[in-house]
């Protein structure tokens, strides 16, 4: 039996890394070759390397510096080829799928469908992570099952037994492909005592170890030295391997004086409090000598903002999650698109700037603007999926087809819709990425974009290697989308490291709580000092309740607490300045709790601390908001109206004007339109247009004078379906298909009314009639304008009377009088102005005016005629039109009135919802 490792107490009045570096230099000299130096994290390792290189200079022969986790693999001789994470996940999927149903249900009550790889992968990842955690303590599922059986909860025991069975199967599956699970490999090596017998190991600041490392180190024995950042006087609080004794630390008080703890209200206040603390140091420290601890990542943007305002760069040590990099976003978009070839996903994919740029580089597509093309297509044709068949006018159709062909070409094999074993997809993904990213110019690492892009591509490349190494037998052949899903999961959790600040650029590092102990900044502000963050809480573990963790020796609450109590001691002693900030509320305004470490003090001090928590300086009251002068914003918001010379006015425009002159100005003077491509069915306009087209065809058909409803209905039905098929294809969105049937239904009712009308003696004289020259000149002050309009129908009775009819297809068609006037005021001028326009045909007699209504209700499908309208009504309407035209031509004013357009952009232009605006429209005109 070898003796225990050496323990060296470094003290804690200096940063642990500096002390460790000094010890190493003194004891190992300049040549540290052959030494293994392990630290809790990679970042600490990098920093130790810097310190030693600086301290010793070029003569230094560095040791191998690695993380405590990697140390086990370095020391243990694992036999066989270890399987990567993706491969293991797939092995777990198979193992779980192959469990007998009853056992599988013990693990997951509802199993995903057989082919639902993503669903299974979710469960398998959970199990794989669980296994990793258990195995790190030197246990496996069978051992856990034994322990759980003692607690006599039948369901739990059965569950762990099922997991144990799956574990066996997982190992078999890997073995069949010449692989081992690395966890099992380590356990086996340990059991067989296969430990590197020569290595000299130094552990620096590793005060919390998992069982596997502990047992490995026990075998290494005296060849290992543990450097413990604590004074020798604390020796009793550490065990033989230099780890914290949880019970000894968990209940200890912490050296955190009340004046070093600040309580703020919200995230923004917390960031400001941190800035105030930095300011109190008054130039004592350089930027690189300060670290901002972020125990709660939610605070990063707030800190970043405040630092930027002070001219300091924030360097977020967590880096940029890979999911946010451009190539990974691109792959995610491709995955979504290939999964269902939905048009919406296609539209998203084509908005990826990198793909867009790659497409634009093709000469054939140089003149194509994909987003616009797709928006227009979507609005007109409401496509559900992208199937390569494009409809509509030839020109956009050709563009869409060319675009689609190019995308398919770039996607290459990915687009072929076949199933392949996973490795078979790696090259296809590479090919696609190259099509997008391989440009003539190499990436310039000095440019931040290129650096991130390069790092992301490198990560993708390594994930593709993993994909390529998947034994084909382990996963059934998958479609491209499935393979991409596996790939994207592999990439999850990885990050691109933050950029290195340029020389002379003041940068303060933002660092997570766990890394702070070994950080060596001279001054530190810890933000996010909250319950659940310090110590970290593991909410609701589905497999390992704390009691079981404790029993199994896994990291439990007590160990986490002990670790953080210890951390606080080190932080307080080893820093020249340290302060902590907590907040009472989070970003969403929900209450937070302070870290309980703030209360690890003698009972007599607690009341004052709770008091601090309860009554922070209320920043809300301290900073009263500035009140803007009323109307200040209004002037900025609305540009002065400039009216071009408008020679023609459409009859239909007046309705908008009467609703809101400003909306009229936007819609008809500036001709602004707004777009949205998310409709899942025809909007009122689209529905109405389709109806109008069909009715126009009817007006020109042989059935226009028929008094038999049946052929009319048949004509309208066929025409509607024919036109719908042209526009939406054979296989439209189900809602659209229903809309067409609804329209047909309305046509059926309309046919009887129409036939009846013919029997009453009415004939369609003109359909879609426009006056000679398109309109009729309306004399107004200072000249005349052309009043233009298109009358849906001019009907003539056998007795010579005329009727002017407008088709209406809204859900509920109101009586013409009500839809033209409200409370004695005009709200629309349409029908009377039509009468005025049609004078050349109709002559002097006042025609009937009304709607051919095709509402949703059967009784709302009818001819609705305005009662009691005579010549004065028409004259009044013309006078009103004249007044409006004159006002418009004089440049307004264009009041907003009470319009509430549904389109958010128009609503924004009208200032809807703005605090500066009086919603009643009683505002004065600027």
């Amino acid at each position, binding site marked *: 039996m070898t003796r225990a490792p050496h323990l060296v107490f470094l003290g804690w009045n200096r940063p642990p890394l500096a002390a460790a570096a000094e010890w190493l230099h003194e004891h190992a000299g300049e040549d540290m070759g052959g030494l293994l130096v392990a630290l809790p994290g990679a970042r600490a390792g990098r920093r130790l390397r810097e310190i030693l290189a600086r301290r010793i200079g070029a003569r230094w022969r560095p040791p191998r510096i690695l993380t405590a986790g990697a140390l086990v693999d370095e020391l243990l001789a694992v036999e066989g080829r270890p399987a990567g994470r993706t491969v293991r996940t797939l092995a777990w999927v198979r193992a779980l799928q192959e469990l007998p149903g009853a056992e599988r249900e013990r693990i997951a009550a509802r199993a995903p469908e057989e082919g639902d790889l993503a669903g299974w992968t979710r469960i398998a990842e959970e199990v794989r992570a669980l296994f990793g955690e258990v195995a790190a303590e030197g246990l496996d599922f069978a051992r856990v099952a034994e322990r759980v059986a003692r607690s006599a909860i039948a369901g739990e025991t059965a569950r762990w037994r099922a997991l144990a069975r799956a574990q066996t199967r997982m190992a078999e599956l890997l073995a069949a492909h010449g692989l081992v699970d690395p966890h099992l490999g380590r356990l086996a090596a340990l059991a067989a005592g296969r430990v590197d017998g020569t290595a000299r190991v130094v552990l620096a600041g590793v005060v919390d170890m998992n069982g596997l490392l502990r047992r490995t180190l026990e075998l290494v024995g005296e060849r290992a030295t543990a450097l413990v950042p604590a004074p020798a006087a604390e020796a009793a609080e550490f065990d033989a391997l230099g780890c914290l004794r949880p019970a000894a630390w968990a209940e200890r008080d912490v050296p955190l004086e009340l004046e070093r703890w600040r309580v703020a209200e919200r995230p923004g206040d917390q960031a400001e409090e941190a800035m105030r603390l930095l300011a109190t140091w008054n130039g004592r420290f350089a930027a690189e000598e300060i670290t901002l601890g972020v125990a709660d990542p939610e605070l990063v943007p707030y800190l970043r903002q405040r630092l930027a305002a002070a001219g300091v760069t924030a360097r977020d040590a967590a880096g940029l999650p890979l999911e946010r990099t451009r190539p990974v976003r691109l792959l995610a*978009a491709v995955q979504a698109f290939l999964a269902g070839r939905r048009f919406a996903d296609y539209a998203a994919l084509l908005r990826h700037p990198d793909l867009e740029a790659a497409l634009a580089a093709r000469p054939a597509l140089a003149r194509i603007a994909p987003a616009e093309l797709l928006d227009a297509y979507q609005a007109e044709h409401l496509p559900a999926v992208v199937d390569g068949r494009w409809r509509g006018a030839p020109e956009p159709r050709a563009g869409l087809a060319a675009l689609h062909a190019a995308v398919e070409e770039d996607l290459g094999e990915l687009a072929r819709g076949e199933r392949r074993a996973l490795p078979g997809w790696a090259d296809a993904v590479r090919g696609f990425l190259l099509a997008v990213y391989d440009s003539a110019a190499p990436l310039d690492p000095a440019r931040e974009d290129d650096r991130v892009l390069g790092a992301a591509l490198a990560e993708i490349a390594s994930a593709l290697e993993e994909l390529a190494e998947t034994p084909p037998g382990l996963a059934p052949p998958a479609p491209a989308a499935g393979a991409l899903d596996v790939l994207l999961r592999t990439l999850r959790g990885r990050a691109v490291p933050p950029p290195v600040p340029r020389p002379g650029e003041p940068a303060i590092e933002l660092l997570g709580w766990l890394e702070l102990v070994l950080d060596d900044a001279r001054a530190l502000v810890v933000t996010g000092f909250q319950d659940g963050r310090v110590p970290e809480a593991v*909410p609701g573990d589905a497999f390992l309740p704390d009691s079981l963790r404790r029993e199994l020796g896994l990291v439990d609450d007590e160990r986490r607490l002990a670790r953080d109590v210890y951390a606080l001691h080190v932080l307080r002693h080893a820093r020249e300045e340290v302060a902590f900030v907590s907040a009472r509320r989070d970003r969403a305004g929900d209450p937070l709790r302070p870290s309980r470490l703030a209360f690890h003090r003698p009972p007599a001090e*607690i009341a004052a601390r709770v008091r601090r928590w309860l009554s922070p300086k209320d920043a809300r009251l301290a900073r009263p908001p500035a009140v803007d002068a*009323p109307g200040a914003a209004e002037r900025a918001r609305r540009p002065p109206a400039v009216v071009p010379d408008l020679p023609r006015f459409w009859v239909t425009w007046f309705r908008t004007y009467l609703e809101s002159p400003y909306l009229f100005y936007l819609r008809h003077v500036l001709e602004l339109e707004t777009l949205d491509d998310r409709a899942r069915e025809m909007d009122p306009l689209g529905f109405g247009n389709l109806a109008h087209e069909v009715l126009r065809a009817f007006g020109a058909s042989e059935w226009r004078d028929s008094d038999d409803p049946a052929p009319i209905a048949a004509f309208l039905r066929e025409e509607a379906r024919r036109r719908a098929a042209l526009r939406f294809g054979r296989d439209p969105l189900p809602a659209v298909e229903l809309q067409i049937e*609804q329209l047909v239904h309305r046509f059926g009712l309309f046919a009887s009314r129409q036939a009846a009308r013919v029997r009453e003696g009415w004939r369609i004289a003109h359909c879609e009639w426009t006056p000679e020259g398109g309109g009729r000149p309306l004399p107004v002050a200072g000249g005349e304008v052309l009043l233009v309009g298109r009358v849906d129908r001019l009907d003539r009775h056998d007795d010579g009377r005329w009727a002017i009819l407008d088709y209406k297809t809204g859900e509920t068609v109101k009586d013409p009088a009500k839809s033209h006037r409200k409370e004695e005021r005009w709200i629309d001028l349409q029908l009377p102005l039509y009468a005025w326009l049609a004078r050349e045909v109709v002559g002097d007699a006042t025609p009937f005016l009304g709607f051919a209504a095709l509402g949703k209700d059967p009784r709302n499908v009818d001819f609705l005629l305005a009662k009691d309208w005579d010549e004065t009504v028409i004259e009044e309407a013309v006078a009103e039109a004249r007044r409006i035209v004159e006002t418009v031509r004089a440049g307004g004013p264009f009041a907003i009135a009470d319009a509430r357009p549904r389109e958010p952009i128009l609503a924004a232009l009208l200032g809807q919802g703005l605090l500066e605006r009086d919603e009643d429209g009683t505002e004065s005109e600027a």
Partner: protein
Amino acid sequence: MSESPHALLLASAGTGKTHRLTSHYLRLLFAGVEPSRILATTFTRKAAGEIFDRVLERLTNAVEDEDARRSLEEGVGRRIGAAEGEERLAGLARRLDRLRIGTLDAFFAELARIFALDLGLPPDWRIAGNSTAEELHAEAVGRVLAAAGAAERLDLLRSLQKEAATRSVHAALLDLVAGARAVHLESAPGAWECVRPGPALDAGELRALGARLETLVPPATKSGKPRVHWKNGLAAIRQHVAEGAWDDFLGATLVARALDETPTFDRTEIPADWLAVLRPLAAHASAVLLARLARQNAATVLFLERFEAAWRAIQGERGLLRFEDLPAALAPGGPERGRPLEERELDLWYRLDAQIDHVLLDEFQDTAPAQWRVLSPLVDEVLADGTGWRSFFCVGDEKQSIYGWRQAEPRLLGSLAARPGLVPEPLARSYRSSSVVLDAVNAFFAGAGENAALAGDAHEARRRAARRWSSAHVPHAAAKDLPGAVVLWEALSPAPGEDRDAPALRLAADRAAALATATPGARIGILVRQRKRIPRLIYLLRERGQRASGEGGNPLTDSAAVLALLSLVHLADHPADRAAAFHVASSPFGPAFDLPPAAGGTVPADRARAAAGRVRERLAREGYGPFCAALHAELVTADARFTAWDRRRFACLVELAHAFDAEAGLRPAAFADHVRATKVEDPAAAQVRVMTIHAAKGLEFDAVLLPELNQPLGRHRVEILASRPDPAGPIRAASHAASQALARTNAALQALAAETVEREFAEDLAVLYVAMTRAARRLEMIVHAPGKNELCYAALLRAAFAGPPAVSVPDTPATARWRHGSDEGWAAGLESAPAAAPPADLPALRLAPSRAPRLLPHRSPSAAEGGPARAAALLRPRDPAATARGSLVHRWLEDLEWIEDFAASDAELLDRGARIEPDLERRRAALAELRRALASPAIRAALARPAGESPEVRREHAFSLFLPEPDGGEALWTGAIDRLVLHRRGGELVAAEVIDYKTDRVAPAELALRAEHYRPQLDAYRRIAAALTGLPPAAIAARLVFLAPEEVVEV
């Protein structure tokens, strides 16, 4: 704890329920109960935070102050020593993590997490945000439609829409989901079949009755003319019958009167021959319409069942849930199914890590039956415990039940009261309000049952609700002696065309401004029913120079700067959106994006397209947070056209954008949606606060103004009727609503409608109760003059407070209809404003000049190969076998000093490589290759010991050292030189040689190219060797030794 350990408090507003709840909590703590064994839940996180704070605060007060300790002793029912208080506080503060004080939602989420796989939930489920959830609902509707056959879905749709041919399909179905889903989920099987139509007439019978209808003759006036009402009524009825317009028929007054017990119309009895025609026709109409309704109900169930299935599938795929899904997930199978945990032999306490012995439920009236089904087993367990050790504490107030739309079931409180072991204790002493305010509350609610505005048949169901309310009303008494005043104002009538509440809102703003100015220390709340009123009121207050804050948060779209940004983002998504382009161009953002200021003109398409492309590109490259931050810094704070309000709101937008980056996709418009759907509270609170009554629950104000009392009641939410006889049980009857005329032809439907109206009116009263009881001292209610004959709070209040004649008040555009209390002195003690510290700007940040930068770039020469990389190089697949071969060869060559001395046997070498490449065959092959290479003259020469002074050879020479960077900084270079040969002359180092072994297989013709590829790497080695040795780089040779082909290349 001598008597029952349980408590059920019926706590009227302001009666100190939180105090009692925390007392109970503290009593448990002082009895030594572990906090993890006490579950205390409420409904909002804010309220949970308050309970948490109150527990801590009371303990702290007791530690710091003798009187407070006394009062705590009263609360916990025993003596507490000074030291004991301190100990308890310290003990509690150290165990903050164990406190189970939180929302019911959070507790359910915890359960759903630890039992996710057992309940069939996705293991890594998350809560979906509002805009995501909306999108997923739409997706589910799409799936339901796609899954049905064409004919079936048309049939379904027609039935759902009662045979109308609506245009809107998708949107209408989404509305149906929003309106009926919650009821559906709670319905017992068959509940939606409660409407059963009677028999309809056959065609013959109908025709016969139609013929008889034609023969009816209206009664005549004295002059012999047919009476005009009869004549017109009959004509209308005839037309309805002819058209089959049965709902119009049933709705006709003549028909309605014919169905009365004593059928009279127009002051005349309806003749028997008329009744003989009208009544059977009415029965027929009813049958037809009820059949239609029944079809609609059946189709609703069918559709919603499919919707649920689709929704569950989507949940599984996306791993997303809504809080409202949790109760059903935890108690699956609906109201009448088993306990999944028991079926699986699982133990809740085991997984929760503690047995919950004590359950404290706050705001119990807001509990929904589905939630209660999850909680009740727990509560049953506690109540069944006979030891007296476990306890149940529940507090609620039916009068404050205003969350019916969230399925809250206030009657659960009543059913709890009936349980043995629970004795309800009413609390009616208000610690909040002045007796003056309480007088008004008492008068109104005690008299609600007799309120004159509720007279008449039409209000029968409402009257029932009001009577129940008044008979249960326990008069509120004031615990504190506060001055106070209550006024019922009558505002001017709205001007023609003006919003009907406009004068009341203006008056509220006037009054609030006046009160605030007179008493700067008074907290003033303006409470409204509709959120959209808030910006309006804030505007009006600002006009009066009064700062006000909107509470509960608005979307950031209340700032012009934010709106312009949203248009910019929208434009990025839709480059052809001319409106968005115009908006951006005419905003101060225009020039920054090269959109010409649109002086009345519009933006050329190519400019808009280019701007859109740039924004999209920047968003993808920088992210939303940095993008918005840059705009904020460069434009919003700089441009004078933006206001202080804009700057504040835009700063919030930047933070929202940073958070959004985590979930951002490729559609910028999604960001705009997110902003529009997210409420962000303005962090600056003001003396006058404006909020909805719902948001004010739990708050109090010195003065409360209620300006929106003329909104009609009972017009809302009655689309779905439902009856739940047992408040904890399922809904037993449900239906779409029907017209009153139809409802009276069917008893089931009528009962259902009456029940729904009654329930909703009770909630309307509760809303008013909550609103009035927010006031501590002063309550001003503003109504306007009567108009149409609808029911509204104004009508009820006017009827209740029909006091002495109206008084007009100078300078106020209103009259006081009713006054109580005194205007003088109402604010005694409130005069001084809270000392508002001057705005504390952030102090300037001073930093020392940089001394020793940390975390410099770390570089390695091997990463430098090939120079700056291209994507192709980064993506090129590695050959694992080649990598292993390389490692093997390097490992073997590490042992080679001079080739002449290299004597290791094959067996030895093979053994040394075993850990690098487990496969023996591959090792053999690599070794053969090495042997071959070492036999080649070129390589032998490179590795041969030179004549003369024997140089020093370092193999695998590891290094980590600093080298200068081109930008003036430094980088740490780390790596190992394969072979470093140091030549000395006379002991003095004169030259060095760096050798790098290359095992990649290169075609001879490409050797030069390959060597070029490695040049940057070798250059780095040369610099490093120079640093290591102190030699000038020129004195250092660098060689590439290729093993296949066997070549040495000088670089």
